[in-house]
């Protein structure tokens, strides 16, 4: 099966700092991929490049056999790659429903007439339909994270990039969000998930990629990665 995403030697320099160094991996469609690594490993930078928020210095990004290297974020969204933000960024002047409408009308679906994928259904699916008309700023953190997911899903992505979707959540909230992620995966969307909460990510991913100092350190099943000595050294070495 052809990979849905294939990145090859992606590199990013920021004024004197090498944030990413020749990172390469493939993602197969339909999985939940975890992306972990100590602070400063470059995970968010990589996510931002895949989402089109920033452009790589070199390397290629191929999505569904199309070269999308360097595309801006709205082009990525049109192609089918969408991200959520670590700190939720709702459109403050708009209600919850209107926030999702933005995704519906500008994402890949383009809000075509007769489309079943409408904003209310997405809110139901995500579990915050009861808040549809509330101003988006009045939501709790957990609900704001759900809104982030709803908005992103509204664009009908084939690849969803989740940035620390569980940070700041309690245990029950985390479990609930992870259930939602599995529901999204079951519906056919591939997920690449950056997270610090190792327990969460290991429980939901089928394949984990580990980064350190801007490079890919290891990848494999959660069990394999957890017992990989170089991964352990990276984490322990950092906290020592």
């Amino acid at each position, binding site marked *: 099966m052809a990979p849905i995403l294939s990145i090859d030697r992606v590199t990013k320099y920021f004024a004197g700092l090498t944030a990413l160094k020749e990172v390469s991996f493939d993602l197969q469609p339909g999985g939940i991929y975890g992306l972990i690594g100590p602070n400063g490993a470059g995970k968010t930078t990589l996510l931002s490049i895949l*989402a*089109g*928020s920033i452009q790589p210095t070199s390397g290629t990004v191929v999505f569904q056999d199309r070269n999308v290297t360097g595309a*801006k*974020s*709205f082009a990525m*969204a*049109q192609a089918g790659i*969408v*991200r959520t*933000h670590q700190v939720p*960024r709702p*459109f*403050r*002047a*708009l*209600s919850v*429903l*209107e926030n999702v*409408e*933005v*995704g519906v*009308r*500008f*994402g*890949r679906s383009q*809000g075509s007439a007769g489309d079943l994928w409408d904003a209310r259904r997405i809110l139901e699916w995500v579990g915050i339909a009861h808040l*549809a*008309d509330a*101003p988006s700023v009045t939501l709790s953190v957990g609900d704001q994270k759900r809104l982030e997911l709803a*908005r*992103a899903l*509204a*664009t009908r992505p084939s690849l969803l990039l989740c940035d620390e979707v569980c940070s700041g959540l309690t245990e029950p909230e985390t479990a609930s969000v992870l259930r939602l992620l599995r529901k999204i995966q079951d519906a056919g969307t591939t997920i690449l998930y950056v997270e610090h909460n190792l327990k969460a990510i290991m429980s939901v991913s089928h394949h984990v990629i580990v980064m350190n100092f801007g490079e890919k350190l290891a990848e494999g099943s959660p069990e394999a990665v957890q017992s990989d000595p170089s991964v352990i050294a990276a984490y322990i070495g950092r906290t020592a």
Partner: protein
Amino acid sequence: MNGAGKSGASARPRFAFAVAPLLLLAVLAALPAFSLGPNTVRLLFVTLVWVTISIAWNILGGFGGQVSFGFAVFYGLGAYTAALSVNSGVNSILSLLLAASVAVLASMLVGLPTFRLRGPYFAIATIGVSEAVRVVMTNVSMTGGASGYRIIETRPFHQLEHFYAALALAVVAVAVSMQVRHSKFGLALIAIREDEEAASDLGVNPYRTKLLAHALAAALTGAAGGVFAQYAAFIHPQGVFAFGIGVAILLMPIIGGIGTVWGPVIGAVVYGLIQEELIASFPQLHLLIYGSLLILIVLFEPAGIVGIARQIVPRLRARMEG
């Protein structure tokens, strides 16, 4: 588009708010019946021109959040285009279309480089562009340079004709503004205003959306400039390209209520009245008023008059019903 559900009890005032503008329109349309003096008609005419420009600016600046200090460029270019074309024998309506087109072109020239800049830098860049255009127009001899340009009168002057032109344009502006506000395009603008990056992440193309809004706003402003030029029959760079005009253009929607449909209209009326009444008696006082208004609004009520009204009206209603 605040989607909070409204109960039946508050439906009556909403009906009143919908009817009021139509009533106003009817009154204005029947103006000759009131036998008002030419000065009053002039005041109304100028106010209607300001209404159009205020609404236009609000499309880009209020809905889209892109504050431009440079709208005088479109006003002035529209005025000169209309004047030049009328003098070349073009009929007045076509000259207004030409005026709008030239303004749209100018908006592309300005927007293409500057919309890559983030908010405040865009604002500063528009100051620069506006002043540069003014200097150039002051020195270009074909259009009379600093001494101005005159339209050769071929027909007798009918003040009401121009009044109705301004009224029609203002009505068009209001209709366009309402349409934008409730459309997909308006949603994109608001998303860009709230968080441009997040909007882009969801598939909104900020650059293209901003350029379109700029073009639409420029078209309306240019047409308004044309309407004014045809009335005044004499225009000069210090009058139409002045930095003060660019300032006034953004003051009106801010005072009235930035980002709303009727805020710019209210702001334009307030501005038009203050301007005409004050300019004769206390020439520099208007600076104090605008400056203080701006400061007060920024500090205490960013939503302008509309914001104040939104707070007062529920309280008044509660007092009347309670």
